[in-house]
């Protein structure tokens, strides 16, 4: 994901709390800018970006904990949960990409296809080299185990995605975004 969006309108001589609220609002908008991808479980990169945005908002609340209202604490807990759910999905995506790579699938999200889009690959190039080293190629027996692991991981990923999506919509029902804005406006 790109570097965090620079914040406009900050005043170095104003109280920290006043500036912290401006920063948190920008980070909140960043989070919700990825909302449109939530219903598509295969927008792997966009879901990852949503996770980074949630992390940035959470860290903003934590960095400025001393000057933001006490009511922010439950918000931080929710953000932490979102981040963990999306983190688990991302870990599964990396593992799936890696297993597909080991098994020779084309759709692995590794260097060749991501290089064209100038994105950071899901599997690090150095790891790709280690996995594809001919001298340690998996035997037929090992490939069997890797295929089984891939199926398990895909199933786990689906469960993780469903859990996250359910949580996300629970937050929408209670208007989580408005809740955060109300806290920031006090």
């Amino acid at each position: 994901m790109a570097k965090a969006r620079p914040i406009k309108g900050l005043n170095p001589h104003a109280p920290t709390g006043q500036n912290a609220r401006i920063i948190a609002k920008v980070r909140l908008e960043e989070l919700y800018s990825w909302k449109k991808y939530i219903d598509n479980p295969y927008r792997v990169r966009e879901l990852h970006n949503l996770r980074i945005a949630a992390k940035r908002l959470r860290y903003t609340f934590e960095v400025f904990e001393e000057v933001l209202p006490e009511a922010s604490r439950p918000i931080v807990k929710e953000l932490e949960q979102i981040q963990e759910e999306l983190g688990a999905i991302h870990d599964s995506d990396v593992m799936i990409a890696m297993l597909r790579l080991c098994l020779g699938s084309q759709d692995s999200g590794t260097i060749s296809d991501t290089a064209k889009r100038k994105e950071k690959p899901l599997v690090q190039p150095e790891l790709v080299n280690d996995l594809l080293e001919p001298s340690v190629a998996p035997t037929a027996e090992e490939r069997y185990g890797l295929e089984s692991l891939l199926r398990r991981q895909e199933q786990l990923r689906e469960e993780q995605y469903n859990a996250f999506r359910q949580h996300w919509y629970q937050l929408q029902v209670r208007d989580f975004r408005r809740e955060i804005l109300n806290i920031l406006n006090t």
Partner: protein
Amino acid sequence: MQDQYSPMRAAIDIGSNTIHIVVARSTPDNLDIVEDQVEMVRIGESVNATREISQQKRDDAIATLNKYKALAEQHGAEQIFVVATEAIRQATNSSEFLQAIQRETGLEVQIISGSAEAVLTFFGATYEVNREPNSPSQVGVMDLGGGSLELITAKNMQITWRTSVPIGSGWLHDRYLPSNPPTYEEVAVADTFLQTYLQNMSIKRFPPVLIVTGGSANSLLRLVQRAFHLDMSGNRLTRDDLVRAIGLMSALPAEEIAQRYEQPLDRARILPAGALIIQKVMTRLRLEEIQVSEHGIREGVLLAYARYGDRWLETVNESADQAEQGKGTKASAPMASPKEETFAQSGRRMLLERTKKMLDWCDEVLKHEDVEAVHKMRVASRRLRATLDAYESCCDPKVFKKFYREVKEAADNLGAARDTDVMLQNLHAQMEQMPDEDRPGVQWLIERLKDYRQERQEALEQFLHSLDEDALKEQAASCIPKGVAANGKG
């Protein structure tokens, strides 16, 4: 000596470091102290760490208060006053704490404001000076506690200005000087922090005489007298004394300081922080020496009661308000507390703190014994990056760019190692639930990841060995320049 019919009273002060009792016969202008005891309970340690008074600290405090109550009663004290200061003001569970004290000791505790604390300390610290024939017309009093510092100036014994700052010896120790003895780097960072903080303090009057009270100041005086063979009856500390004392305490562990110079160990641990604060305040007030007083808030409570009766606290609060109103608005504005800092001030403080926190993990990561060290250092690097992202518009662009690049490189190296650790943990967990025929495949992947993890460790170690920690701290300290205005990017 007081008239034997002067009433005997006791005053107890629950501070961030200590719980202290004084029992004395008291009149409006004098005290005849018959008992003076102190216990290091360090409630502030728990509050600094979790914002709460822990069960252990609560139990220790109650045990001490029960002991003091018995002591006061032995001396026939008619009344026992108990006041609490910064750590209790800050604790999120202070109400429960006070209720527990009332329930288990029968003592009622008053949480007093920073303003009232300053006035009471002033009463206590100056009553002996007032009795001297040539008492100074202008005087300053500093009460250095574990969690806060009170500074008061007075002319003809009328308070002209006061401020309360939530920086104390325990606080500075916990945040900046945790090693035993403190490292050179820790002292340098604490020194920079204090200098930056105190520079922002506008002082209306520079007192020619400063009386310093509180446990750290008194312990420091005794240490200096013993270590440098000075007159044990003196009450003065010079700037040179402090420099030498800081040098000594940076060279010897607290255990040795405690043993050699007869200090309680808990006090010896936080003494370098106390010395550093006093030294920096002296520099800011342009003083070459200070006087140390054993008396403070407790004696102030006894004097206030003798002067004003049952309405002593209301009267003290009114005096504090008058002192507040007497000061100008801008010229005498007190220095900012962390909650009142400007954005630029908090940025300077946080960038230094977070850089140091990240670097604190270097040694553990290099040991390569516990995978959690990599995780902790990575989290610290993320928090530092989040702080940098927030303050980018206040930063010098050149310094920011260099600083950010280094922190990002650290985070990337740590991330590659940590992500592999997590994958390995997940694979091990999954393998336990897999049928035997699937395991060779998982084992194959684990072996590949272990090789890759070793490569990442080597890259990480190479990076950490090449990292110039002092340069990074310097970048953190100078990233937000003085007199900053939000730059064009912001």
